[in-house]
Each structure stands twice: as C-alpha cells, then as structure tokens.
C-alpha cells in the first residue's frame, strides 16, 4: 500500500522545543503509512501574542502559511493552538471576498476554496489502527493513563461546526491496552503563557490537574499538545509528580517503535522507571 501524504505544519512548539513530540509523531505517521512533508518556509501562526495585541498581524501570519500549501494537499497540524489560528483565518478568508482579494495580492496565489486543514487526530478517522498491529489490546500493558486535552476541545463559536475530538485519546489508548483513567480535569487549560508572566496562577492549575489525576489512580498523563506538556512538567508544585507522555510517544511505542531512547531523555519528569516497571521498556 502506498503512503498518503500530507503537508505538515509543525509550529514553533514542536519545531523548537517539543522535539520528542515531533520525532515520535513522524515515527507514528511513518508506521501507519502517512507521509508528512513539512510546509516549506512556514512561519509562526502568531501564537497567543499576535491576536492578543495586534489583530492585523494575527490575520496575516496564518494567511501566508495558507498560501504556501501545495494545491491538492491537505494541511495537517499537530498543535491545537496553531490549528485554531489557521482554521479561523481560513474560514474568515472563505467568507470574505475583500480579504480574498487582499490575500491574492499579498501572496500571489489564487485562493483555494477546497483546502483542507486538519488536526493530527483527524487521521484516526482515516486509518485503522488495528490494521497495523497484531495484538493491539496487549500493547500498553494496562498502564494507567490520564488523558489531558487542555483547551484543545474548547472551540470558539465560529469553529463550532468543526469536528470535535472528544474521547479520541481515551478510545485509542484503551484499544491499545491502556487502562484509561477519568479524573475530571481533562479539558482544564494549562495556562499557556501565564507560565511565564504569572507563574503562580499557572502552578495552581497545573498542580490541580496533576494531583486530581494522581488521586484518581493515574500512573501518567498523556497530552495532545507540546505546550501543555511543557507546562505540566515545569509548573507542577508536587514533589513527586507522575510523568507525562506525548500522545504520539505512547502511540509509537504501542506500534512497536524502537527509537524511544531519543525521546525520553528530553522529559523533565523521567518516565523511564514507570516504563521499566510496567515492562514497556527493556532496561
């Protein structure tokens, strides 16, 4: 079977900080016959800062990225925040003729009304995970995971008709043999940049998220966003917090990837003792 290829927008968090997230994501995609081609010369989506203080810049940064997508290819984004920024811009572009004219003038390409912008999670509707593993239900050996979506399931009103991925991590992880824990803080925001400017506020929410997961019996958290992952790791006030994995790391491991050695040393809360104890990693 040939590979399906997508244009891939990594975004700054995956590109320059969450390296282990990118590596495991690429590995996973490769294992399920998906080829990700990094969007050539992509720029930052504007992050939280552009829309906070300068809506013109916030409008134009994503539009340039949209103009770079090769015609006929869908754009895949793994960062929930970048996805919202690009998707919102694209929908605005679609509904605003004047903006289309400006876009074509600015970036010299015709507006493409058929462009598809999808989150990484969307892939799970397009592939059959089980087709790639012989014995899926034994793979994660009953490890107790607390899925953490952060704000990714919260959509602004203009994106309400976009697919919601509620429950996706739970379903995927339990089908791979993990014991999924429910703890009530799955969708609590991690605080994003308050982690820098108001660390106490950030610490409060992060500590709450992790301690609730621990109270519910979780041995680890699994995150959908590289930024959330970082905040969970650096802002938890507990002495011995449980480790957090990127969703892509657990997926790749379940599928039998063997290059984890490069990923886990990048974690601040060391996940190796847990993985060894569970027999998920040879010592």
């Amino acid at each position, binding site marked *: 079977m040939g590979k399906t290829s997508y244009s891939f927008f990594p975004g700054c968090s995956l590109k*320059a900080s969450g*390296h282990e997230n990118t590596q495991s994501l690429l590995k996973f995609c490769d294992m399920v016959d998906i080829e990700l081609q990094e969007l050539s010369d992509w720029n930052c989506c504007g992050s939280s800062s552009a829309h906070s203080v300068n809506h013109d810049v916030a409008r134009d940064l994503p539009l*340039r990225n949209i103009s770079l997508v090769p015609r006929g290819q869908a754009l895949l984004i793994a960062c929930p925040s970048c996805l919202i920024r690009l998707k919102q811009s694209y929908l605005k572009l679609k509904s605003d003729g004047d903006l289309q004219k400006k876009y074509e003038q600015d970036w010299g390409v015709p507006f493409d009304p058929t462009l598809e912008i999808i989150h990484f999670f969307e892939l799970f509707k397009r592939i059959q995970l089980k087709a790639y593993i012989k014995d899926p239900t034994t793979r994660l050996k009953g490890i107790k995971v607390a899925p953490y979506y952060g704000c990714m399931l919260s959509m602004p009103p203009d994106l309400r008709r976009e697919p919601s991925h509620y429950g996706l991590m739970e379903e995927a992880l339990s089908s791979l043999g993990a014991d999924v824990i429910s703890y009530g803080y799955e969708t609590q925001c991690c605080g994003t940049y*308050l982690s820098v400017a108001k*660390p106490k*506020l950030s610490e409060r929410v992060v500590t709450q998220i992790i301690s609730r997961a621990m109270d519910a019996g979780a041995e680890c958290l699994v995150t959908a966003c590289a930024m959330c992952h970082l905040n969970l790791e650096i802002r938890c006030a507990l002495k011995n917090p449980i480790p957090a994995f990127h969703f892509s790391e657990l997926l790749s491991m379940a599928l039998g990837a063997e290059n984890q050695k490069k990923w886990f040393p990048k974690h601040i809360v060391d996940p190796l003792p847990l993985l060894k104890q569970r027999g998920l990693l040879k010592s």
Partner: protein
Amino acid sequence: MIILKKGHGQLAREVQERSGINFNACLHCRTCTNACPFVAGMDYPPNALLRLVQMGMEQEALESSTIWVCVGCNTCCSFCPMAIDIPAVMDSLREKALAAGVKIAEPDIVSFHDEVLKTIEKYGRTHKLEIMMRYKLKKRDFLSDMGVGLKMLKKRKLDLTPSRIKDQKALKKIFKKNKTKLIGNS
C-alpha cells in the same frame, strides 16, 4: 428606569465593531465565570467585564487585569449558552487599552507579548530562549525561575539558535504595515 448618560453606548458600539461580536446577547448567567480557569487572577470576572463595556465604563474595563489574564483558552465561549466569543472581545479591549495609553494592569504580560512578537518579526518564528532572556532583562529579574530555565536548557527544551524563515520580505510585509503599538516598545 435607569437614565443613562450621553455617550454611554459608545464603548459597546466600538468594541462590537472592532471584534465583530455581539456581546449584548449576554444573559449574565455567569457560566463563563464559573468555567474560567483563571478567574482567581482577575479583578473582574468575564461576565462583569462585558457588563462594564455595556455600561460604558471605559476606564474600569481598559485598566482591568481581566483583559490581560485571559489567555483565550475558549473555555468560556464553548460553554456560553449564547455562543459569545468572549476571548475575541478581550482581544479588542487589549488593543484599545494599548492604543488609548491607559494604565496597564499587567505590564509583565504585555512585555511578554511584546518579546514574542519581536522574535516573530525577526525570525518568522518564535525563539523561546530569546523571549525569556529579554523578558527577564526588562523585568530585571534573573533569579526567579532560574532553576526551571536551566532544567529546560539541559533537556534541550530551549533551542540556542532560532529557527528562521527564508522569506524575510514576507515578514516585512506583515509587520511593516501593521506596526505594533505596544507600550514600552524599546
């Protein structure tokens, strides 16, 4: 009957126009306030902020900490029964506060946004290490979070060199005509 002063509706009209959001649909049911993860750091809860705008209390709204503490996580507006995009209203208020030159309740947050945008303007992508260094320099605070910073460096969570885009002209196009109007822009 409440008799409102002349010009009372001006702020609401302006913010509505700027954001494109009809927040007069707000029922003040406080669902947003109950959902907000950061209400503890705000002087006015989100629905009260909308109320300030509706009542034309411009200074209170623009000088509030609420507009800066809101990170736009969209929790409020996913729960809002009237589907009001509250974060988009906050965006407009922040811009208005900066343009009006009022007293900013959370200068550190503005300074952070400022540094982020500067690295995007320079490289086309954010450069975390530079953002942090410049932010700390401006604040003259090197000690807090030193441990976290070193841990991140050690674990290679902070790339030393920026990842940059080739098309510098595009960046100029985006930033030149949309010059940021931040206060304390050095």
